[in-house]
């Protein structure tokens, strides 16, 4: 009798232990790659400066959106700050999950934001985030490896890149010169494919919003990916099991590759002797082009406040400290994290560092930027695309058939997601 009561109390107290510990601070959700040592230092500094307490929840990358969207859909204020990617912007805006910043952001700030960065934070007249790591991919290559093979410049076209890679491989300088990471369920697949389509002069969707990837450049791009892996053999087949931009950088820095597309300001880390064993051998160049232009892909991101946040004033304070010009300048100087603020780019320290890390090239690249399609059903579409690419690359389905199936699925998704 007494025992049962005691036991019931035990269970209840365990339960309430879980109810207790309500958080009095703001919570930001992020993935491990975003929480570099520099970022952690910035977070601490921002808390000290603004007096707002911030708790950062680090979650595996494929869990971030799940946890975030679940909380938002249930209208539970588990998270206050989060990193929003341009590909999620349409969905989050339509669902009303982001708190508009129009009342917080000053006209001066609005003018300071670079145009391509604005795409990631502004939608339908509403400012939804501050630019955060508004980055695009840079084409990095191992200059020394190329000169060892007798090449004195970076490839300007994809044909040239393939020729050079075949030569590098023949001279046994490297087994798989072109580094890609196309692991299962990895967004990079979509990024790389979109970029290639742009380089070859095509688009994924036509003006009417209908799928265009199963003809022309779309088909050529996927065929090229296949050929690079199985015909010219310059891309490692085990790329299909690898994920991570850091991994691509490590492969390049370890001499396991000659060419790679890297986010951010890659030369900062690649030529840093503490982080890279082949420091000093790297440079960046404009992306190789095909029939189109030397396009690279941008993924302007933003740091945003959730609509469920209970204290938006405090959230804005710490947000502007982290993602405002001063914060972004810190992140650039320490991590090479790119910025979306004009004033930061013009800052003398930043300009000097940029000049050393290929700033001139990056400025030129900024004129040839492609972005991924803005779809309310982007998540599902991108998953389907990644699946298609993987199936083609494991030879389960042909290029044309794979893309045709994808086009059919896309039309179904579109129909399902419009009221």
């Amino acid at each position: 009798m007494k025992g049962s009561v005691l036991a019931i109390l035990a269970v209840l107290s365990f339960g309430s232990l879980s109810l207790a510990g309500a958080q009095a601070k703001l919570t930001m959700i992020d993935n491990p790659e975003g929480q570099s040592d520099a970022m952690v230092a910035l977070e601490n500094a921002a808390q000290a400066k603004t007096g707002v307490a911030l708790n950062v929840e680090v979650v595996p990358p494929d869990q971030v959106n799940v946890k975030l969207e679940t909380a938002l859909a249930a209208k539970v204020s588990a998270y206050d700050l989060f990193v929003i990617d341009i590909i999620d912007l349409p969905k989050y805006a339509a669902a009303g999950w982001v708190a508009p910043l129009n009342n917080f952001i000053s006209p001066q700030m609005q003018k300071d934001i670079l145009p391509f960065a604005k795409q990631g934070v502004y939608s339908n007249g509403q400012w939804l985030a501050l630019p955060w790591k508004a980055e695009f991919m840079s084409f990095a290559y191992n200059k020394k490896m190329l000169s060892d093979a007798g090449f004195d410049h970076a490839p300007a076209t994809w044909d040239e890149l393939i020729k050079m890679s075949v030569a590098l491989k023949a001279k046994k300088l490297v087994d798989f010169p072109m580094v890609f990471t196309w692991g299962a369920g990895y967004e990079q697949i979509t990024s790389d494919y979109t970029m290639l389509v742009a380089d070859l002069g095509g688009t994924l969707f036509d003006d009417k919003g209908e799928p265009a990837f199963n003809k022309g450049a779309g088909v050529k791009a996927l065929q090229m990916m296949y050929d690079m892996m199985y015909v010219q053999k310059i891309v490692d087949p085990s790329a299909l099991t690898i994920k991570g931009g850091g991994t691509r950088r490590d492969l390049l820095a370890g001499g396991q590759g000659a060419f790679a597309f890297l986010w951010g300001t890659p030369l900062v880390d690649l030529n840093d002797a503490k982080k890279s064993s082949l420091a000093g051998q790297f440079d960046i160049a404009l992306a190789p082009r095909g029939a189109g232009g030397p396009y690279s892909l941008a993924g302007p991101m933003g740091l945003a406040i959730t609509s469920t946040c209970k204290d938006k004033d405090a959230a804005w304070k710490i947000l502007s400290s982290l993602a405002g010009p001063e914060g972004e300048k810190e992140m650039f100087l320490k991590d090479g994290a790119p910025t979306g603020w004009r004033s930061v780019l013009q800052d003398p320290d930043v300009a000097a560092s940029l000049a050393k890390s290929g700033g001139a090239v990056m400025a030129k690249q900024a004129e040839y930027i492609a972005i991924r399609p803005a779809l309310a059903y982007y998540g599902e579409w991108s998953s389907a695309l990644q699946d298609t690419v993987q199936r083609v690359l494991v030879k389960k389905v042909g290029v044309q058939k794979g893309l045709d199936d994808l086009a059919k699925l896309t039309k179904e998704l579109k129909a399902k997601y419009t009221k």
Partner: protein
Amino acid sequence: MSYSLSLRRHGAMSTVFLMTPSLILIFGLLLAPLGYSLAISLFDLHATAPWLGVRFVGLGNFAKALSSPAFGAAVARTLYLSAVGIGLGIPISLGFALILNRPFKLRGLVRGLLIVPWVIPGSVQGLLWSRIFDPHYGALNGILLQLGLIDSYVPWLIDPARALLMVALANLWSTVPMLTLLYLAGLQGIPKELYEAASVDGSTSVGSFWRITFPLLLPVTLITLILKTIDAFSLFDLVYILTGGGPADSTQVTGYYLYQAAFTSLDYGYASALAWIIALATGCLAFFYSKLTRTEEESR
């Protein structure tokens, strides 16, 4: 005796009362959610498109599951996994058990160590095998190269068919030792007189194996068959870490398929329907299992 029986054994009310906390826990956290799960399976929750609202679809999710080629493929892969586990696992375990059945020094220690693969957490197993199967620096490639069986490194987890086989073998590794222990226990339950009688009758050791050992171990074998099949349907940890279902979904077994439906696609209604279908399937298997153990007990 009957006097003390009525004094000590308590009635239904007393039983239930002592069990109240357990019942609260189990009914609250296990049975109630089951009902909710059934309810969810009848709706499309549109978690990723909240502007579309919640829609009642009746048995739509179930129909979609049963007609889905992806789900069918996942079930096929799961059955393949259990087939490998049974087809290879039983002979290997039986062999090991026969080897360990003879007395030798340190036998106790060896038997004790058999349990190690089973206790290693599933995610660590995934880590372990991803290292062993690594296409550039893995142990499997290293050993085969040194033994001269291959002349260049093989990317084990790229080819779809091979990837699934590798997952099946990795899973096999963790279950064979336990099965060996079960067979060992079974072997030691066979009276030596049976063998002596057989050899007096002129039977060879191979003959006595097929005529005595194998039939007497049949109950263990049958139970293993069913349990391994049930387990295959919930395999998740290993696949999540080792292959993530890839490449190109070639290692997507039902456990992983379900996880993706629920927590990657956030399609809760569909995932609940899937879960119920799998639950019913494994429930039938569990039913056969309990029937088997019941007849087992009765025949003793």
